């Protein structure tokens, strides 16, 4: 360009640029805290290892969906296809003694699911969100019916007689689920680290650009479809590993691994936690499972009602306030010991009032958020000063 001889002044800018890129990839305090908390559950909650294992597996599954939805903008209502495929592959490998060692079987299941992901990725390249929803849903339905009809999958009875060898030949699965939980958590962590690496790479950056504006992405030389195929294949591998973990942890695989509900639930978890920062799916999985577990204990006949209410409120008032409002309504109904019909009437009336009052409530929540952010900034500044 015409302006030259500026290079001597560029050095500090280059430094700033490098720091700006590096900042994105650096582990922050909250992330470290998240994983330390996860590690702590191994020792502090030994009686909860079964549900924690399930949470870790769902977290991995949701992480997989985040890779395609949060980073590449591909919506899917059939992500259970890969989860279920991985689950059955792991089950069949173990049952027929093809690959006995769990970690190797897990890898094999992931690779098999990646193969399925690669083949079906070409179906989601074209079209709008709606066509993608339909196509992914269709693929999962087809797969479920195949699993239902085949003999090797055990059909409607599920895959029985799966017996797992010790992990790496040393760590046998125990009845308290400790081995299964530690094993699942390690797999989740390793795959998370890899995913984190991927999204902070030039490839990950190109995915975000494709999600943001695929027209422009192709106008700067990015092969958009190639990138979508790649990320869909990777995400399928992740989902397949999650499914395989479930089979290995429960020593059983049934048609439920391919259910529509599984695809819908994982979407809910990701939406609850938020897309595009990798932790959303994992946080969503924890919340979803904990809330589900709690509600199913307290109001076993109609816990879906409360979950639904929470989702509606989250959409109306944002994630945090929606959850708080839903919890408040639930709390009031519980304290007043309202039955199902009364709870519904009370809630519907309240939702109507909230709907009308929404324009007045939103400024209040916005103000609270503003104060919270200011507080967060000042705390962070204090931390930064300490570090110097």
């Amino acid at each position, binding site marked *: 360009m015409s302006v030259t001889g500026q290079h001597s002044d560029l050095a500090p800018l280059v430094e700033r640029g490098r720091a700006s890129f590096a900042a994105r990839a650096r582990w922050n305090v909250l992330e470290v805290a998240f994983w330390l908390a996860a590690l702590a559950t191994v020792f502090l909650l030994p009686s909860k290892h079964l549900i924690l294992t399930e949470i870790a597996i769902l977290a991995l599954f949701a992480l997989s969906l985040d890779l395609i939805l949060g980073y590449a903008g591909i919506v899917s209502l059939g992500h259970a296809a890969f989860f279920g495929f991985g689950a059955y592959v792991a089950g069949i490998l173990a049952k027929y003694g093809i690959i006995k060692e769990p970690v190797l079987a897990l890898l094999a299941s992931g690779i098999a699911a990646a193969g399925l992901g690669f083949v079906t990725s070409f179906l989601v390249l074209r079209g709008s969100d709606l066509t993608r929803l339909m196509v992914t849903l269709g693929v999962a339905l087809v797969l479920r019916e195949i699993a239902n009809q085949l003999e090797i999958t055990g059909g409607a009875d599920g895959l029985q007689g799966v017996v797992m060898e010790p992990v790496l030949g040393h760590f046998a699965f125990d009845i308290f689920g400790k081995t299964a939980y530690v094993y699942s958590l390690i797999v989740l962590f390793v795959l998370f680290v890899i995913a984190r690496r991927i999204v902070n790479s030039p490839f990950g*950056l*190109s995915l975000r650009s494709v999600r943001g504006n695929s027209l422009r992405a*192709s106008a700067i030389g990015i092969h958009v479809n190639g990138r979508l195929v790649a990320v869909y294949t990777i995400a399928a591998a992740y989902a397949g590993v999650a499914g395989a973990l479930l089979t290995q942890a429960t020593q059983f695989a049934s048609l439920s691994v391919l259910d529509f509900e599984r695809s819908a639930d994982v979407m809910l978890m990701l939406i609850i936690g938020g897309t595009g920062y990798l932790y959303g799916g994992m946080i969503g999985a924890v919340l979803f499972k904990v809330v589900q577990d709690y509600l199913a204990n307290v109001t076993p006949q109609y816990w879906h009602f409360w979950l639904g209410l929470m989702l509606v409120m989250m959409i109306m008032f944002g994630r945090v306030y929606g959850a708080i409002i839903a919890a408040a309504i639930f709390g009031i109904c519980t304290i007043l010991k309202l039955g199902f019909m009364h709870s519904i009437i009370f809630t519907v009336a309240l939702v109507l009032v909230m709907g009308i009052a929404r324009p007045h409530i939103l400024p209040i929540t916005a103000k609270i958020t503003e104060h919270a952010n200011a507080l967060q900034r000042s705390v962070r500044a204090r931390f930064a000063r300490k570090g110097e």
Partner: protein
Amino acid sequence: MPPVLETKGLDKHFGGIVATDNVSLAVEKGARHALIGPNGAGKTTIINLLTGVLRPTAGTIFLEGRDITNLEPHKRVRLGIARTFQINQLFADLTPLETIGLAVSERMELGRQWWRLTGSKSIVVEESVDILSRFNLADVMSERTGTLPYGKQRLLEIALAIACRPHVLLLDEPAAGVPEAERHGILDAVAALPSDVTVLLIEHDMDIVFSFADRISVLVNGALFVEGAPEEVATDPRVKAVYLGEEAHA
């Protein structure tokens, strides 16, 4: 020497509508070539045909003597055609640094690397920062693109095309929608484009066209109407009749 960019008998029909009608255009190396015409003359359609967003109904496109008519858009970029858009097409969630860094990485064929961290290659950061500072974007390079003022976004729109290091740059109304106060920044950036980059400019604003272009093609109803040096076009009575008359340019 053959033209850098050439079309032969380019046609584009949308159903019964003829958007591009037998356009044979030749753009010489290093040229500052402007494509003008009244609204709906089919200027942007031609850009879309040249970049591969649209496929022509008939005709061929040559880039540096090579037939690129059926090449996918991203492959044309790699061969040296880059464009800007009339309406900003940016990545709102990325920072300008990430945006330019992405284009530079892609050009260096690093875009499929999934293990290396973005920004770990010094040459990518250095070149990105260099481009950003040349377009006066260095001070906002770590802010979210979506929050930048329109004028800055418009500069990024051009900087992003430049980051592809094109042989031929297609500028689609670079100053469109830019407030008067920020306009000179855009025009300076356009004027400062490297002289070895061939520029095809689409523009409504006659001041910009006549101050910038060394050759002008006039498009009317999808067909090439007149082509020549600026002074020829400005004095051509037919052009005055269809076009310049309504722009009140003497």
